[in-house]
């Protein structure tokens, strides 16, 4: 489960400093200041062990996987599949329940297109449970990243199904009372985020899954902001599908993954088709490999997968419970510090419950781009904009916000520098004396 063990030993400052030495980029300067990288929610920095794994693969083993019988190809295939087992194990899954994708967005689209293809009859009888049509409903939430919203809008448009959403309350939390009425016997699929990329709050997965189970709907979890920061076990959460990405958890860009329960993946028609995913091909038709290969058409992300396994190894050596405990402390400091500064509104700041080290905020009278520019001048890297969550920002009555997000390598000193920077924004832009 995603709950943080209270017994996890907090890392000491010295330990965090030690970890930071593993990340070459963290030694660089930005605008004359040591970089304070507070944008890990967008993408994480990479430790040398991950960079070495990717380079080492190209220097010593590079060959085509799952094709060819020469020694290099065979060894590369073993490493590639070992990497799958490592990433799957990290989220409590079996190795044949993890499909490589280009990113988490593709993972979510894979599920949406499998439903779509099933809806026009592909996949035969086995895929019947994925068929959608008029009268069926797909449910998302108002907190979603566009990647977990637009694929479902498009799926509904293609199949004639109706898209509905669980609204958020005024403080930004999912309205669980409303969820009870939005999710009905017509609901076939419920897709929601584990941790909001804007609010940093951990959503009540158990309650939503329970409601989905009551009506027999499948559950898709966007786990992009949870898997990098918390211990997560998908089978224990009892979700049917989950999407997460490598680059947010120390691995390179260009690779993501879809977790799917074995029997569901086995019944799903493919999304992308072509080489490497077939058994027999004639000029008229093709038969497909079992999962996960069925969903992995074309040349795969081999070096990225191997580097992702190195990232998982790095995280496990530290311990996800310790990383979560460290970031919970940083997250509380971020939230408390921001709330002390006049003119700051933290989006979702009043929501109770578990949080990761992430906070988005609005500065009265100053646009997020200007806030970000002011902080950048001090070497502090934050995200500005709508963070691919326009509906949630609209709900708060803003078009953009500034977001600070932490990781295992973030120090208390960096959070302090950030808070001091934010405290100076009002004066610089003349909105307060």
């Amino acid at each position: 489960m995603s709950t943080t063990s209270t017994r996890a030993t907090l890392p000491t400052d010295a330990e965090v400093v030690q970890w930071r030495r593993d990340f070459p980029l963290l030694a660089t300067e930005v605008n004359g200041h040591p970089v304070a990288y507070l944008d890990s929610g967008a993408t994480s920095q990479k430790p040398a062990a991950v960079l070495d794994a990717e380079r080492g693969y190209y220097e010593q083993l590079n060959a085509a996987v799952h094709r060819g019988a020469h020694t290099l190809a065979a060894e590369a295939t073993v490493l590639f599949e070992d990497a799958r087992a490592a990433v799957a194990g990290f989220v409590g899954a079996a190795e044949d329940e993890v499909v490589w994708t280009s990113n988490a967005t593709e993972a979510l689209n894979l599920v949406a297109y499998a439903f779509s293809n099933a809806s026009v009859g592909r996949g035969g009888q086995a895929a019947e449970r994925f068929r959608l049509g008029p009268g069926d409903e797909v449910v998302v939430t108002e907190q979603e990243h566009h990647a977990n919203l637009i694929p479902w809008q498009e799926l509904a448009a293609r199949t004639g199904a109706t898209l509905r959403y669980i609204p958020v309350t005024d403080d930004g939390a999912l309205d669980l009372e409303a969820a009870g009425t939005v999710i009905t016997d017509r609901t076939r699929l419920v897709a929601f985020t584990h941790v909001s990329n804007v609010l940093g709050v951990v959503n009540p997965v158990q309650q939503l899954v329970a409601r989905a189970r009551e009506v027999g709907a499948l559950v898709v979890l966007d786990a992009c902001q949870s898997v990098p920061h918390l211990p997560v076990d998908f089978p224990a959460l009892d979700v049917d599908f989950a999407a997460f990405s490598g680059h947010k958890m120390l691995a390179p860009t260009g690779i993501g993954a879809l977790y799917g329960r074995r029997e569901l993946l086995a019944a799903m028609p493919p999304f992308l088709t072509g080489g490497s995913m077939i058994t027999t091909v004639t000029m008229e038709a093709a038969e497909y490999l079992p999962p996960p290969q069925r969903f992995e058409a074309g040349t795969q992300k081999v070096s990225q997968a191997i580097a992702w396994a190195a990232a998982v190894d790095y995280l496990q050596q530290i311990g996800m419970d310790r990383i979560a405990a460290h970031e919970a402390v940083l997250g509380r400091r971020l939230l408390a510090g921001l709330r002390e500064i006049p003119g700051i509104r933290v989006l979702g700041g009043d929501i109770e419950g578990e949080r990761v080290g992430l906070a988005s905020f609005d500065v009265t009278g100053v646009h997020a781009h200007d806030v970000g520019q002011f902080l950048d001048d001090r070497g502090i890297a934050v995200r500005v904009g709508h963070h691919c969550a326009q509906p949630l920002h609209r709900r708060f009555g803003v078009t953009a916000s500034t977001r600070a997000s932490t990781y295992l390598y973030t120090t208390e000193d960096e959070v302090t520098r950030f808070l001091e920077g934010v405290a100076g924004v009002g004066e610089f832009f003349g909105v307060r004396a």
Partner: protein
Amino acid sequence: MSAADLQGLYQELILDHAKTPSGTGLMESADGQSHQLNPTCGDEITLQVHLGEGDAVAHLRWEGHGCAISQASASLLSELAEGLSTAELTERIDAFRTAMQSRGKIQPSEELFGDAVALGGVSRYVARVKCAMLAWVAAEDALAQATAGR
């Protein structure tokens, strides 16, 4: 970059225009009107071109929301445009784009741009060029409609 550079970007004139902008408020009809959106931050502007006697721009009117750079840029543009011929305004829009895309190599000339030269510092901040350009792109589009309608 130091605090001095940040003050080069956010010159007093820019912050003043952002706080009390010129040319805001749309009219019921216009010779040309354009809506532009910056999809990365959701900033938007609606800008109108109103033509006067002959080929002269009587005034630009606009409404929108965004960062200090985009608001000041729209304000400075509306002051600059008044009384120019459509050809002169087009020339300035082209020159402004060239300066903005120069990564700090080309400064807009005071002769052509007046107070709007204060925006020259933006071109060194690649991520902010779109903010400065938003109103000018809207003006280019609105102007094309206005001149096509004549």
